[in-house]
């Protein structure tokens, strides 16, 4: 396991002093490899927090270019980045924030055909996509690889987040087996994206540290217009056609 340099000890001092982290935890973060699917509203914040926290390797994947209408929430990108590939814009900021974090940027669409290659040896998937189809691709890949998948989504003042772990929880398609027709445009508010992606980032950090208390088998649902935070208890189902056949056999109790 890679050790912590004196520069890193200083850079991460305020989190190393947290008992649950310490120097051992910081080493775990440094040795972690995290896949972030999308660097838009959710991915802007989660990628920034992952890099800031000293995750050793981040792979960021996005196919889009920065547009003016992204800038109300995608705070990794700036006005001068308009028309740039999002991954290029993101990697500039992330490297500037933390040159100690190794970042691989891939400007590609996530598809069934390339997901396994894209994932490589990443050990956690952080979902920062904006559509159901890509989430289903990520879902099948995380089951196949037996790695955690942190789902987050927003819509206006609402958002939800949960953690899927093969063998321990239901999967995304247990919850959402239908194919929803894509919505043309979903309302997206910066602080809501920030809230959900911050929670996803916390989940990633806790999983890397081996902490309990993650959102496994719990769907956290937030209605920020009334500041209501609720959780829905999720139960495994034996009938899921996706995860009951997968490596994790995650729907069997």
């Amino acid at each position: 396991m890679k050790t912590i340099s004196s520069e890193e000890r200083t850079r991460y001092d305020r989190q190393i002093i947290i008992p649950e982290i310490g120097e051992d935890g910081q080493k775990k973060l440094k040795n972690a490899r995290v896949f972030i699917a999308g660097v838009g509203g959710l991915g802007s914040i989660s990628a920034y927090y992952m890099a800031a926290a000293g995750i050793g390797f981040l792979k960021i994947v996005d196919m889009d270019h920065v547009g003016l209408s992204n800038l109300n929430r995608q705070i990794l990108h700036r006005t001068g980045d308009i028309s740039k590939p999002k991954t290029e814009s993101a990697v500039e900021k992330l490297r500037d924030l933390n040159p100690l974090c190794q970042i691989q940027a891939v400007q590609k669409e996530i598809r069934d055909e390339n997901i396994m290659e894209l994932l490589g040896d990443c050990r956690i998937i952080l979902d920062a996509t904006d559509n159901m189809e890509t989430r289903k691709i990520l879902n099948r890949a995380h089951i196949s690889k037996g790695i955690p998948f942190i789902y987050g989504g927003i819509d206006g003042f609402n958002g939800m987040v949960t953690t899927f772990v093969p063998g321990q929880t239901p999967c995304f398609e247990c919850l959402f087996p239908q194919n929803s027709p894509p919505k043309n445009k979903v309302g997206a508010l910066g602080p809501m994206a920030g809230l959900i992606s911050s929670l996803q980032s916390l989940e990633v950090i806790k999983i890397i540290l081996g902490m309990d208390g993650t959102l496994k088998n719990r769907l956290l649902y937030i209605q920020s217009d009334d500041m209501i935070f609720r959780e829905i208890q999720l139960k495994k189902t034996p009938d899921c056609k996706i995860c009951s056949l997968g490596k994790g056999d995650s729907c069997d109790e």
Partner: protein
Amino acid sequence: MTSKNISITVNGFEEKVPENASISFLITHFKEEDSNLIAEHNGRFVYPDKYSAIVSEGDIIEFINPNFGG
């Protein structure tokens, strides 16, 4: 013969629904249209293939539209 109604709470509001109403019936009755709707029955997620479950007096039902934006 008239059917008996029971009181349940749906999305925070008390509602009278027919005895033996199923989750499936409630989805139609309350015009919940999202195909990936999340149904919660007394704090528990209800999988779509269990929508035939019958609700009882005093049950709490929540219908939540999923959030897929990012």
